[in-house]
């Protein structure tokens, strides 16, 4: 019996513990029919864990969930789907080789005797897409669709299962502005028909267009649920971080006349279609843009991690086009990769071992025969550990056993093994807590103020906006805008995110 007076979704006292981590503690969340409810918070705040519980991926350690007044307990995503919870995760679950309608009915095929009823599924898919006003040929293979279209198929899948609650996890992360508008139009319609929508995002400007209420999570706790109309952007950021904005981001002294240290000219590679830029000593150059805008790939290419099609790279006045990663590192460039697990760290080695690897090229650590001075290495790794703030006891533990924040500190520590001229940080604070974040910002400040050239590539807008002296906005493989000083503001940046740059190649 669904009770119309009861809220559509009510999660109360939800706590989730993983071995060694408390991901959520006592979270309450209420979603009404026809409401667009935004979940807002940093990476690691617990948003994903919370929706994973609602969609049946995880079971809560304690707490209760009611759907329309009836208490439920989900053992699988399937259970949740049956109860009317439809989830569109960030990673899509489409089989690329299958046509859209078969993807739609995957796992719940319509049958005619022992055979699948292709005609009925085709008709059903077309009818659903017409109702949702999605213009997609359902016989095309999923792989031929754009990301936005794939997302629509995912949403359609949720509706095919009669979703009463639709959960969208960062749905606009890879959509263009036009696609985003269409998605918002659809969300409005769905909400008007009484579906409850839970929308996860950290793009304030964007979700303020559609949100009714916003729940802010931080460190696994629900901080507040506020009305979208009455809460300003600044208030939201302060609720999210728990600190005044200017407390989080340090003021970094800018040396505007520093010499140019590294230049990239006419860079072309997969995903980058001709971009020029330069970095000066003593400045922080920010690179912002959507996923796939080329902001990260241009630097990966410059570092020799991705083949360069054409263009010229100059380091300290020398042409280093086509130089190997190793040669660039030796020439004084430090590159901090965005994915510390796959590219940054030896997960089974200790924090010390990870830092030591970067020390081995120093003559005072490993002599001409390659023998490593143990005492010297120990002293240096200890000093670096101190500098980046790794606890003494953590130095000799396997990195896999450390928290995300400590892992990121180890990764930063590798940059202090040697004196470098250019520091490139690709997503420097991904998945770390607020305290570590502030510590890492202090390190970036110290590096820039010591006269080094610093590049910060980040999908976290407040971060890249507040740290940068100059900000490059990437869109579709080109630099859409260069902003500096007071021009670095969210509306300016977002405007260029979707820029159709003129003169396409």
């Amino acid at each position, binding site marked *: 019996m669904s009770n119309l007076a009861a809220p559509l979704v009510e999660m109360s006292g939800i706590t989730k513990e993983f071995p060694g981590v408390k991901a959520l503690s006592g979270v309450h969340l209420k979603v009404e029919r026809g409401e667009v409810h935004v979940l807002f918070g940093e990476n690691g705040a617990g948003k994903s864990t919370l929706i994973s519980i609602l969609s049946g991926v995880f079971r809560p350690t304690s707490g209760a969930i009611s759907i329309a007044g009836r208490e439920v307990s989900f053992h699988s995503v399937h259970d949740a789907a049956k109860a009317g919870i439809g989830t569109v995760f960030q990673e899509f679950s489409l089989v690329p080789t299958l046509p859209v309608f078969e993807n739609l009915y995957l796992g719940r095929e319509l049958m005619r005797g022992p055979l699948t009823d292709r005609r009925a599924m085709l008709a059903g898919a077309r009818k659903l897409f017409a109702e949702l006003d999605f213009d997609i040929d359902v016989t095309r293979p999923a792989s031929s669709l754009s990301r936005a279209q794939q997302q629509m198929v995912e949403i359609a899948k949720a509706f095919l299962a009669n979703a009463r609650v639709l959960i969208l996890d960062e749905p606009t992360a890879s959509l263009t502005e036009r696609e985003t508008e269409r998605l918002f139009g659809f969300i409005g319609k769905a909400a008007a028909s009484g579906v409850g929508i839970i929308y996860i995002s950290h793009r304030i400007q964007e979700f303020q267009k559609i949100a009714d209420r916003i729940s802010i999570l931080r460190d696994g706790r629900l901080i507040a649920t506020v009305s979208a109309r009455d809460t300003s952007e600044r208030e939201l950021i302060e609720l999210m971080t728990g600190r005044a904005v200017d407390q989080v981001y340090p003021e970094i002294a800018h040396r505007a006349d520093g010499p140019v240290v590294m230049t990239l000219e006419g860079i072309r590679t997969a995903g980058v279609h001709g971009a020029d830029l330069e970095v000066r000593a003593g400045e922080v150059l920010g690179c912002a843009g959507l996923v796939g805008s080329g902001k990260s790939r241009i630097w990966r290419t410059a570092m020799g991690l991705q083949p360069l099609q054409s263009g010229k790279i100059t380091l300290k006045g020398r042409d280093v086009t086509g130089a190997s990663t190793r040669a660039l590192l030796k020439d004084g460039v430090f590159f901090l990769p965005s994915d510390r697990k796959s590219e*940054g760290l030896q*997960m089974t080695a200790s924090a010390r071992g990870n830092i030591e690897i970067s020390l081995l090229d120093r003559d005072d650590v490993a002599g001409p025969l390659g023998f490593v001075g143990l005492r010297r290495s120990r002293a240096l790794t200890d000093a670096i550990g101190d500098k980046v703030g790794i606890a003494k006891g953590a130095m000799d533990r*396997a990195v896999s056993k450390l928290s995300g924040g400590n892992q990121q500190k180890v990764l930063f520590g590798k940059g202090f093994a040697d004196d470098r001229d250019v520091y490139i940080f690709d997503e420097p604070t991904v998945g770390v807590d607020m305290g570590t974040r502030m510590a890492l910002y202090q390190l970036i400040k110290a590096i820039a103020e010591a006269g080094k050239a610093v590049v910060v590539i980040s999908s976290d807008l407040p971060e890249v906006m507040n740290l940068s002296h100059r900000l490059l906005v990437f869109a579709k493989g080109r630099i859409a805008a260069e902003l500096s000083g007071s021009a670095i503001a969210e509306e300016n940046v977002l405007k260029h995110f979707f820029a159709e740059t003129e003169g396409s190649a």
Partner: protein
Amino acid sequence: MSMPTTTIAEDTSRPRRGHALLTGLRAVFLRVGVLPFFLVATLIAFSLVSKEFLALQNLTNVARQSVYLILVSLGQMLALVTGGFDLSVGTAIALTSVVSALAMVALSHVLPPDMLWLVIVLGCCAGLAAALVIGSINGLGVAVFGVSPFIMTLGVQSVGAGIALFLTGGVPVSGVPYEFGDILGFGRVFDIPVPVLVAVVAATTIWLVMNRTRLGKHIQAVGGNVKAARLSGVNTTKVLFIAYIMCALLASVAGLLLTARVGSGETNLGGTIALESIAACVIAGVSLHGGIGRVENVVLGGFFIVLLQNGMNIAQIGSYMQMVLLGSLLVLAVILDQFRYRLLVGER
């Protein structure tokens, strides 16, 4: 005589009882892998079968016999730690044996008898050079062209074996100088057999390389996470290349010692050693995922395999059944390694 020893072996790996015992065993498993458990089980099982098994003389014998496998396993460990493996170690042994024997025979006809030393030294060098070629081809394929170590070393295994058979026509190469066997095969220095001495020197060297040099740390880094190693400035191509060369050379040294022992160049000396050396390493806690491996444990692992074979011989288990057991043990060790790796990396 045998019972007290068994109890001691049991006691050292089984502290207290109940929960403490489990935590203790878990810690040992995480640190060194399955080897202590297998070793204890083997010692108990075979000492029950026969009193001879734990006799000092038998154990010394096992130690001496295990020298060859230990040498090969040390090389195999290097390949495994980089995240690959080398199936062509048997071929490196066979080719070393054949080439060194052929070289010595040919040289002894050319050079005057009083230059016998030169014949032996040059013969050994020829054998090592043959292995160097094998290692370089493996290294080239794996490090430069990115061929999977499985396919690369499997292919080279066949190529090398074919060449060795072609060179000899399948007939053992006789006429190797007696002095060669007298020294490398049966010689003693300070009453220690030369092969044992060679193994001790090799193990010490590899231990130093892995624990005290840049190269060793780079080998571990490449196996632990190739991308991270590259981004730390490690020349990953060079490191992989060197690892496969060192692996082939260590097998080659074992090949020379074996040739000296049997007194002729044989194409079948390396028969099952690829499987045995991988088994020795994995049982000794070298991870197939790369990045993890300790020299001292590998030495013990090589000893364990030979001990097991010795025990099975004493227990009169036929060689066919021995193959079944050894293969099963390898698979079991890999399953347990998988489990251990997951615990180490801390998967949720």
